[in-house]
């Protein structure tokens, strides 16, 4: 800490702090027009010029970037300083007579009419006053390096490179944010694919994942965060008082040793844009079931209001079943949950809006406890059920007022007629499908998949929750489409199976194991590298290999590989297999 004197006031401030900050601390106002707390001092408007006296020497410096030193005396309002500010302000006012911030500052500095005309006079109210804050923001903070100055001297201006739209611009808007005159406008029309539109995902790069998140803290989306794109910004770190923001955090891989694994990796939603006829991703107000779920959510983007992109409430909502399910072009199986959630959607739409609701179904499958009753209730609520798979969704308009709408075309198989139903919003009941990476997961655990691509249980009836791999269990939609009660039941079963092993304290293994007949083994070490379970060890003293039977899974690869046939496999010995062969050849 050093003590300095500002306009007669003695203040103690941190050494190397700027005069501007010190003055702020002392409650002394110094005018600035190119300074922002988010930016390094630029020192170009020179309005913050102050007189610094050290010993006999007095000099004019800019407060925004001049570091204080002990014993310094600063005059922020001396005659000389006043005069400098006044002339500078005259210069600015003569050039930008209608810019609000300039006018305000001139007024504050009691500058009325500049004594000279400016030939470069810019009459615009949002003229650029060349404070450079946007350029510094773009280059030093955001580090996008897009904005810059062109030309020198009086012709200086802020430009995009070559005066063209720059691909380097990440449309962060920081320049516009910092611009004191409103000269910079961010126009988002289809620029780099970013449209100012209704989005269902997080709206800012830093967000709390969900209200139910544990722990409930914000996370940074590295994909959209400026810092991770340019290395710049870091404004969140600057404003975070507990210094909780850590950009160096990395995803880390934590290794946990376990004896049993429950694979419940869930499902992916069928991408309805593969069925172009329904307009998903192409037409506004066509949603997937999960997106619609998010709209219904009170913490969702619309706060639970069912509205269209225009912000208006829909007049009619169409819910189309079996998108990608029960369709040999995509998934032949039934996704099992759609009928019921479609009914739920209908119920909630009915509850929250006055919209007419249409369900387009192939068959209603209300098979669970209380489901059929719910279906009947919905019928009473006035939901229109149309039996027939929707053929396509097209753009149309409402009769009467001509407002744009969507039109669902389908064949109503109950009345045997082709129908066109105008709606404002379409909800697609996408199929449940195996996760994209399910093959990788499957391989990781050495488990198989059934023809539909979901993980294969050991036995569909007798053992629906364990797999071919001992100690690996499956539950939920990873095993096949199922609703919440079924998932819970299966998961409970798996958990019980797992717990029973833990409780027992020991593991039973199949007797199919490899074994070294030591009298025949000469220690050639061909087998030692082959075992994926590292069950084959080499006994240095005996110079023979040895199979750890607890580790061995009995695949028999080593048996086949053993050049001296010293390795033999219980249950699948050479003699047994050859005998089988003999038998088969009769």
């Amino acid at each position, binding site marked *: 800490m050093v003590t300095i004197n500002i306009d007669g006031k003695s203040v103690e401030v941190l050494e190397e702090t700027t005069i501007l900050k010190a003055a702020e601390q002392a409650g002394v106002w110094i005018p600035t027009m190119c300074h922002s707390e988010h930016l390094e001092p630029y020192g170009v408007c020179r309005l913050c010029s102050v007189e610094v006296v050290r010993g006999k020497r007095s000099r004019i410096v800019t407060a925004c970037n001049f570091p204080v030193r002990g014993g310094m005396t600063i005059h922020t309002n001396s005659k000389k300083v006043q005069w400098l500010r006044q002339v500078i302000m005259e210069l600015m006012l003569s050039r930008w007579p209608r810019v609000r911030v300039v006018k305000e500052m001139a007024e504050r500095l009691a500058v009325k009419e500049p004594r000279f005309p400016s030939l470069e006079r810019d009459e615009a109210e949002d003229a650029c006053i060349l404070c450079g804050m946007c350029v510094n923001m773009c280059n030093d903070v955001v580090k996008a390096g897009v904005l810059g100055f062109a030309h020198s001297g009086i012709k200086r201006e802020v430009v995009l490179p070559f005066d063209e739209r720059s691909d380097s611009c990440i449309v962060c808007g920081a320049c516009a944010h910092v611009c004191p005159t409103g000269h910079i406008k961010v126009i988002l029309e289809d620029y780099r694919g970013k449209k100012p539109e209704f989005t269902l995902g997080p709206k800012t790069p830093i967000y709390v994942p969900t209200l139910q998140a544990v722990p409930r803290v914000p996370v940074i989306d590295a994909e959209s965060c400026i810092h991770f794109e340019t290395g710049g910004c870091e404004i969140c770190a600057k404003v975070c008082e507990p210094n909780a923001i850590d950009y160096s955090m990395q995803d880390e891989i934590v290794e946990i040793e376990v004896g049993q694994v429950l694979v419940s990796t869930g499902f992916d939603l069928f991408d309805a844009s593969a069925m172009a006829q329904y307009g998903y991703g192409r037409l506004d107000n066509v949603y997937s079931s999960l997106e619609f779920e998010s709209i219904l959510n009170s913490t969702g983007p619309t706060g639970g209001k069912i509205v269209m992109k225009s912000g208006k409430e829909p007049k009619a909502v169409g819910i189309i079943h079996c998108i990608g399910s029960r369709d040999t072009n995509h998934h032949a199986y039934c996704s099992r949950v759609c009928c019921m959630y479609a009914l739920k959607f209908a119920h909630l739409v009915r509850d929250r809006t006055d919209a007419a609701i249409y369900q387009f179904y192939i068959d209603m499958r209300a098979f669970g406890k209380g489901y059929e009753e719910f279906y009947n209730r919905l019928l009473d609520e006035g939901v229109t059920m149309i039996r027939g798979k929707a053929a396509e969704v097209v753009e149309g308009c409402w009769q009467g007022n001509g407002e744009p709408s969507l039109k669902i075309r389908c064949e109503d198989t109950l009345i045997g007629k082709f129908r066109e139903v105008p709606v404002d919003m379409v909800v697609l009941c996408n199929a449940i499908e195996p996760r994209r990476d399910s093959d990788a997961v499957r391989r990781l655990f050495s488990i198989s*998949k*059934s*023809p539909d691509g979901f993980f294969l249980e050991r036995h569909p009836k007798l053992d629906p929750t364990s797999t071919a791999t001992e100690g690996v269990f499956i539950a939920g939609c990873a095993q096949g489409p199922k609703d919440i009660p079924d998932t819970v039941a299966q998961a409970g079963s798996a958990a019980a199976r797992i717990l029973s092993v833990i409780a027992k304290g020991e593991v039973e293994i199949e007797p199919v194991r490899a074994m070294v007949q030591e009298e025949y083994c000469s220690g050639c070490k061909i087998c030692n590298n082959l075992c*994926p379970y590292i069950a084959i060890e080499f006994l240095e003293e005996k110079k023979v290999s040895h199979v750890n039977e607890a580790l061995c899974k009995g*695949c028999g690869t080593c*048996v*086949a590989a053993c050049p001296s046939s010293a390795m033999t496999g219980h249950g699948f010995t050479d003699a047994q*297999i050859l005998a*089988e062969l003999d038998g088969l050849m009769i």
Partner: protein
Amino acid sequence: MAFEPKIIGFLCNWCSYTGADLAGVSRIKSAPNVRIIRTMCSGRVDPAFILKAFQLGADGVIVMGCHLGDCHYQEGNYKTIRRLPFLRRLVKGFGIDPRRLRLEWVSASEGDKFALLVNEMTEEIRSLGPLKLSVHHEIQQPVAHH
């Protein structure tokens, strides 16, 4: 009597054997010519078994295992993809048409593929005709083991 190929199939327990099972459960028709020997893994299939099958009169041998990367034992089938091509060189060396020895991947969910392969192989061997080896006549006397 028309020639009915005798084909020995070595099937891994987890994928192919289950796949064959699925073919059966799914009532998929396939040729009865493949006589199946189950091993825990295609990696267990000793080349000697295959030669022995030929010696004993098999007209063809098909080894089926899990798809690469899908091995229940992680990498057993990678041994098989080295063993079989190697053995195929010997089989060829013995003057046997290499088409009589096939390696295929059939997963637990590929009952149809199993059936298809069985039919395909049967037809192929049928067109190749019976495998005639001089050893067939010689082993009428029992082979001494030492």
